[in-house]
């Protein structure tokens, strides 16, 4: 599903600032039906990796394959569902406008767009607010709207950037159960999160990034064992601590 091979990315120098290496020779992969959690502190390179996968930015070196093609081939994004960390929509649109746009660009029939929209809006508790402008949504509602948009085209691969961001505990539990359902259906999921307990609960494998380099890729319990810790969270913290020393 995803093959990231020795990818490096340096952000160009801005006025008064130095060039910044966001990723250095990072490689990882995601197989079909697998869930990979990408974790790391702020500035670890998680968002850069996701932007590279979505072709928002291009790598300086290395290669990226997404569903067997390069991310630059925009047609493959009809098989991908992307959830950005911060949902930003044109201010005056409704979730229905965005769903229609998604359906049109993914070449879905209008009937299917209507059915899928209703299904996901009801599932995510947005059906009654479907005609309200997105600017009037709370942060949690915007996140759920983004989920509905990401899932409309029944994607094979889901790329979720901080899916729990801005959600209250009930909303978070609901999204956790949704991701668990999607995982059970055999979707491939790449997601990054700061909430390590969620990562531990959901993922098959974990990728630890730190200051643009890969520190670990494997099963969470392997990380705990390698670090001699009772659980994954402590194992991760020790790994990062060792690296900083």
């Amino acid at each position, binding site marked *: 599903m995803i093959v990231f091979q020795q990818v490096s990315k340096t*952000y160009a120098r801005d006025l008064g600032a130095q060039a910044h290496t966001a990723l250095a020779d990072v490689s990882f992969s995601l197989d079909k039906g697998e869930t990979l959690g990408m974790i790391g502190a702020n500035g670890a390179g998680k968002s850069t990796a996701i*932007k590279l996968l*979505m*072709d*928002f*930015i*291009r790598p300086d070196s290395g290669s990226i394959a997404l569903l067997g093609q390069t991310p630059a081939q*925009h*047609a*493959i*994004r*009809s098989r*991908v569902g*992307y959830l*950005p960390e*911060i*949902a*930003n*929509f*044109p*201010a*005056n*649109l409704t979730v229905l*406008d*965005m769903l*229609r*746009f*998604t359906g*049109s*660009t*993914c*070449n879905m029939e209008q009937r299917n767009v209507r059915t899928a929209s209703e299904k996901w809006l009801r599932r995510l508790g947005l059906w009654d607010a479907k005609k309200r*402008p997105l600017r009037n949504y709370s942060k949690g509602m915007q996140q759920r709207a*983004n989920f509905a*948009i*990401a899932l409309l085209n029944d994607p094979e691969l889901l790329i979720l950037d901080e899916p729990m961001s801005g959600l209250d505990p009930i909303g978070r539990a609901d999204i956790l159960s949704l991701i668990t359902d999607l995982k059970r259906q055999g979707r491939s999921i790449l997601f990054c999160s700061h909430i390590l307990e969620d990562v531990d609960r959901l993922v098959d494998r974990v990728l630890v990034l730190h200051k643009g380099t890969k520190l670990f890729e494997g099963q969470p319990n392997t990380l705990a064992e390698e670090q001699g810790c009772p659980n994954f969270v402590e194992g991760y913290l020790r790994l990062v601590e060792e690296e900083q020393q």
Partner: protein
Amino acid sequence: MTGALKRIAALARLVVIDGLRRHALLGLILLSVAAQAGALLFFDFIPRDIGRASSDFILSLAWLSGFIFLFFHGVQIIALDEERKVIYSLLARPISRGEYVLGIFSGLAGLLLLLNLLLCGLGFGALMIIKQMVAPAYFNQFNMAPYLLSWFGLVTMELMLLSVILLFSGLVRGSFPVLLISLSFYAICSGLPVVREAVSQRTAREGAQPIVENMLQWMTAVFPNFDRLDFKNMIASSTSLPDLLLILLNFGLTISYVGLFLWLACLVYQRRDLQ
């Protein structure tokens, strides 16, 4: 409809819907309509040549409305899409960056067209009322062809500025620099014919200045002369229209500029990082 056209139309529709629900834009439309209606009061203050002055007033107001739309709504939509990362939500769909540029352009062009159609109809009504209210000596003829040609010229100039804004939005980060650079482009386009005229007068007095003249000529290729699409002075006068071939050439050239700027904008967007 091919896939690419369908995707461009879907994005254009989104831009049109967003624009039509934007209070600032609705306010601009209402203000423009009110100002057009103001032509009915304005003509009362003109002692002579009422037809020419009224049509000039109506077309200039429409230009101002389009100008405000382009520089305050257009720039905001394009540059803020990137600043606020709206572009990520749009490009996460199977839409190429070239289609993104063309979709945004088509949507904004659609809104501009709607605004101009409304003002063109209202302006026509206002001019007809004025013509009936004054003596023939003050407004003796109304020429439909120059009137329509004036609006067509206005829309073509606005579309060219829109394509320029799109190009600069790809080249420069931030809505304020885009606004400044686009305004500068417009200012140079408007000022260049005046400079060329001044230089030619000086040449007539003091002899040829080939370097300056050549430089100004080449600059005209980059900063086209908008006056060539301005026909508003012919709406109420007996001046005949320029040769049809010349009109077609001027419109053709401007439309080619729109195509060129859009092509460059697509190229820039396709190559750059969206940070």
